[in-house]
C-alpha cells in the first residue's frame, strides 16, 4: 500500500517538473519533438534510479557513520558525474542500439538538477503518505520513489512535447514565439496537475 501511495504521489501529485521545478532546463530544451523527448526521458529515468540507489548507499554507509553529512552536495555531484560517464562507456560496449537512442542525452544529464535533486531529497527529507507518521525512506522505498519520480518526469515531458509539436504549426504573436508560449502552456498543464493534489 505504501509503495502504491509513493508511486501515485511521485508521478502525479508532486510531479517533479510541474510541482517541484526540477530538471526544467532540459525539459524546455529537448521537448520540441516527441522522439527526442522520449529519448531524454528514458536516459533520465535510467540515471535517476541508478544515481539515487548509489548515493543512498554512499550516504548510509559512508557519510552518516563518519558524521560527514555536510559533504552530501559535493560527493553526490561527483558520484553522479562519474556514474553518467560510466553508463555512457558501458552502454556503448554492451548495447550500441540503446546507446544511439540515449547516448547523445547522457552528457547533458550531469547538470540536470532533477538527478541531484532526487538524490538529496531522498536522504534529507521526511516523507509522509496517506496519514502515516512522517519517516525517512528505506532503500526499497527510495528506489521506488526514484523510479516513480522519473516516470513522472517522462510523462510530463512526453505530454508537453506532444502539445509543442502542435503549437509549432500555429500562428502565435511574434513576441510569444518560442519559449514564452511554451512556458504559458506548461503553466496551464501545471494547473491541470494541481487537480491531483490532495489525493494522497
Amino acid at each position: 500500500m505504501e509503495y502504491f501511495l509513493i508511486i501515485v504521489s511521485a508521478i502525479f501529485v508532486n510531479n517533479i517538473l510541474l510541482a517541484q521545478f526540477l530538471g526544467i532546463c532540459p525539459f524546455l530544451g529537448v521537448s520540441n519533438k516527441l522522439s527526442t523527448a522520449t529519448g531524454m526521458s528514458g536516459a533520465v529515468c535510467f540515471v535517476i534510479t541508478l544515481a539515487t540507489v548509489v548515493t543512498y548507499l554512499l550516504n548510509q554507509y559512508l557519510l552518516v557513520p563518519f558524521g560527514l553529512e555536510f559533504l552530501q552536495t559535493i560527493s553526490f555531484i561527483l558520484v553522479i558525474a562519474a556514474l553518467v560517464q560510466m553508463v555512457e562507456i558501458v552502454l556503448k560496449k554492451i548495447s550500441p542500439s540503446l546507446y544511439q537512442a540515449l547516448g547523445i542525452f547522457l552528457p547533458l544529464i550531469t547538470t540536470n538538477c532533477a538527478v541531484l535533486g532526487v538524490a538529496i531529497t531522498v536522504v534529507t527529507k521526511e516523507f509522509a503518505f496517506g496519514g502515516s507518521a512522517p519517516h525517512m525512506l528505506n532503500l526499497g522505498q527510495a528506489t521506488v520513489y526514484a523510479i516513480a519520480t522519473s516516470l513522472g518526469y517522462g510523462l510530463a515531458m512526453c505530454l508537453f512535447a506532444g502539445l509543442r509539436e502542435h503549437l509549432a504549426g500555429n500562428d502565435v504573436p511574434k513576441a510569444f514565439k518560442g519559449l514564452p508560449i511554451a512556458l504559458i502552456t506548461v503553466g496551464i498543464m501545471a494547473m491541470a496537475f494541481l487537480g491531483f493534489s490532495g489525493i494522497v
Partner: protein
Amino acid sequence: MSKWHFVTDGFVKNNPTFVLVLGMCPTLATTTSAMNGLEMGLATMFVLILSNIVISLIAPMVPDKVRIPVYITVIATFVTVLQLLMQAFTPSVYETLGLFIPLIVVNCIVLGRAEGFANKHSVGESALDGLGVGLGFTASLTVIGIVREILGSGSLFGWKFIAGDGILAFVMAPGAFLVLGFLMVLFNKYLAKK
C-alpha cells in the same frame, strides 16, 4: 571605465533568465515572494563570483581533458561553504530556500560562465562578469518574485497592501510558469523596439 560593460552585459544583453534562459529551476521554484527571489539571487551570485575568480586563476594550470570535473569540484566546494555559512548565520533563509541551495551546483549559469568566460579571461574581468551575471540573475528573480507576490498574496516584500487572499494560483506552481512566460513576452517586446 572600460570594463564596466562586463557588468552591464549581464543585465540586458546576456540576461541569464530572459535571454540565455539558464537556471530555470530556482527561477521558478524560489520566486514565491520578492524576498525569496532576492535571497536566491544573492546566494547564486556569491557562488558565481567566487567560482569565476578561482577558475580564471587556475585555468592555465588545468589540463584540458579534466577541466569540467575540476570546475564542478570548485563550484561544489563553494556551494558547500555557502550551505554551511547559511545554516550558521541565516538558518531561516536556508530553510525557506531548502533544496535549491545545494542545487546551485547544477545551475547551468555557474558552470556556463566558468566554461564560457572565466577560463579565457583575467581574474578582474571574471570577477566583474560574475558580479554582472549574478546581479542580472538576482534582478530577474526579484522581478518575478515581485509580480508573483503582488498577484498571489497582495503584498510586496512582506508589506501587505491588498486585504484578502490574492490569486493563490500565482504563488503555486502554475503561476511561476505563467509569470515567467508573460515577462519574457514583455522582455522580447522591449528588445524588439530597441
